[in-house]
């Protein structure tokens, strides 16, 4: 398998605080890679470096390289194009306060698509891919905030898919949802693996074992262990990984 991302010697600072130390990681194409670890260990921070959302944080500084398809995204790279190619789903469902249709169409419109017929197709296809079309097809003009939290999160996934990304970053996408909605999202993520490279941050170790192919365990801004998910959970090489996955801390 080809590497979608190659992260080389990455250090990240918020002001004086070093949030990531010497991160080296390869993320394979069309696989699900999970980041696990206790709160504040840097897993979300690393996720946000993959589409440069950290640019929005004052005083954030980076050394090292993040290569996407072999090109350094921190070296003279069009950040809007990067974020079009690398979609993101957030911890809390955050649909815009507008209609479901306009939510999905916002991304394509941003990138210059104006034709109504084409937008209609994109909206339907995206909602279908996110497994929510049947639930909302009769109320596309309704405000997206009027549906349930689980449905909102799938609308957010559809919104991210509408700009045809290659990578999907998910920052604890089910932590605000009930078990049934969580289940639906997990099934959906497994399904999306066929088309997209997926990186998911999760607090939930069962979730990582259920859906991911590879898992990275973070502690205090460092990657302690990175391996195929089945290996990492069945025979961790590092004592700290073992302590964490057996619930001794975190």
């Amino acid at each position, binding site marked *: 398998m080809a590497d979608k991302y190659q992260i080389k010697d990455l250090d990240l600072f918020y002001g004086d605080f070093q949030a990531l130390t010497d991160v080296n990681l390869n993320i394979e194409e069309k696989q699900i890679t999970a980041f696990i670890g206790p709160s504040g260990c840097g897993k979300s921070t690393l996720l946000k470096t993959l589409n440069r959302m950290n640019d*929005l944080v004052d005083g954030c500084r980076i050394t090292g390289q993040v290569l996407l398809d072999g090109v350094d995204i921190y070296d003279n790279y069009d950040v809007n194009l990067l974020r079009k190619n690398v*979609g*993101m789903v*957030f911890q809390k469902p*955050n649909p*815009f306060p507008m209609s479901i249709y306009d939510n999905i169409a*916002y991304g394509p419109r941003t990138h210059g698509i104006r034709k109504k017929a084409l937008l209609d197709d994109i909206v339907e296809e995206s909602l279908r891919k996110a497994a929510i079309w049947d639930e909302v097809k009769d109320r596309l003009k309704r*405000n997206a905030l009027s549906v349930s939290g689980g449905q909102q999160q799938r609308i957010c996934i559809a919104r*991210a898919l509408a700009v045809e990304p290659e990578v999907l970053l998910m920052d604890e996408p089910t932590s605000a949802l009930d078990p049934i909605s969580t289940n639906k999202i997990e099934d959906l993520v497994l399904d999306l693996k066929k088309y997209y490279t997926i990186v998911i941050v999760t607090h939930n170790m069962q979730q990582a074992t259920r859906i991911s192919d590879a898992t990275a365990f973070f502690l205090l801004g460092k990657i302690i262990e990175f391996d195929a998910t089945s290996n990492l959970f069945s025979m961790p090489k590092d004592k700290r990984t073992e302590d964490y996955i057996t619930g001794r801390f975190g």
Partner: protein
Amino acid sequence: MFHSKPKSTFYKAHPLSLLIKILVWASVCITAFVLLFIIAYIFIKGVPHFSLDFFSLKYNSNNVSVLPSIITTIYMILISLLTALPFGIGCAIYLTEYAKESRFVRYIRVTTETLSGIPSIVYGLFGMLFFVTYLKWGFSILAGSLTLAIMILPLIIRSAEEAIIAVDNTYREASYGLGASKLRTIFRIVLPAAISGIFAGVILAIGRIVGESAALIYTAGTVAKIPISGFDSARTLSVHMYALSSEGLNTDKAYATAVVLVALVILINFLANTITKKVGNK
């Protein structure tokens, strides 16, 4: 068990609760009474003096028509808002989305706060010295409404700033995450989400415009005609009321004017609310 207990025993055990409850209710009653009393008083004194002549196109000393003042008031509101809104919202966008916390930004904040506390007569004096005298516009609705625009600017900046800050940051993240530029994020996501808060500021601003008299006497003058151009002098409803009651001959018509003023304010609030709801539900 607790809520099935009769109230009287509860208050016997907690006499302070009873006292507080009585005080709160008394405040509500007094406030409502004062408000209703004022409105009723104005209506009782004013409505009987309504007639067709009162709304005729021309004002003269035999027939103190209110129509020129209504039209002037509407002109004033429109010109002041059209001038102040772009600057006010632009300033609020800069302060919230672009400016980093710095000494310069703190100075802007202190300045706007100070400006909102300055008595309107001071703005009137400035308007007279600058627009009327220095720019040689004379007493004119343009001089008057630009003075008012400066006066409402801090109010609009503050309310727009607060409305923009209140917009959930996750909306901005989602927009950036889709590859949208900062400008698109501000105009397509942030401002629409903030629109109801901005409108609340606009309603307050309209209240100040409609209620202003002192600053206008020195800048727009008191001519009681329908203004034809921006450089004509004219009087708004408040100035009209002031003139009528100070002349002492037409106090009854001053009350009638007050009724028109109150009705206009209610109408504007109603319209603004309807617009806000329409925009918000899009």
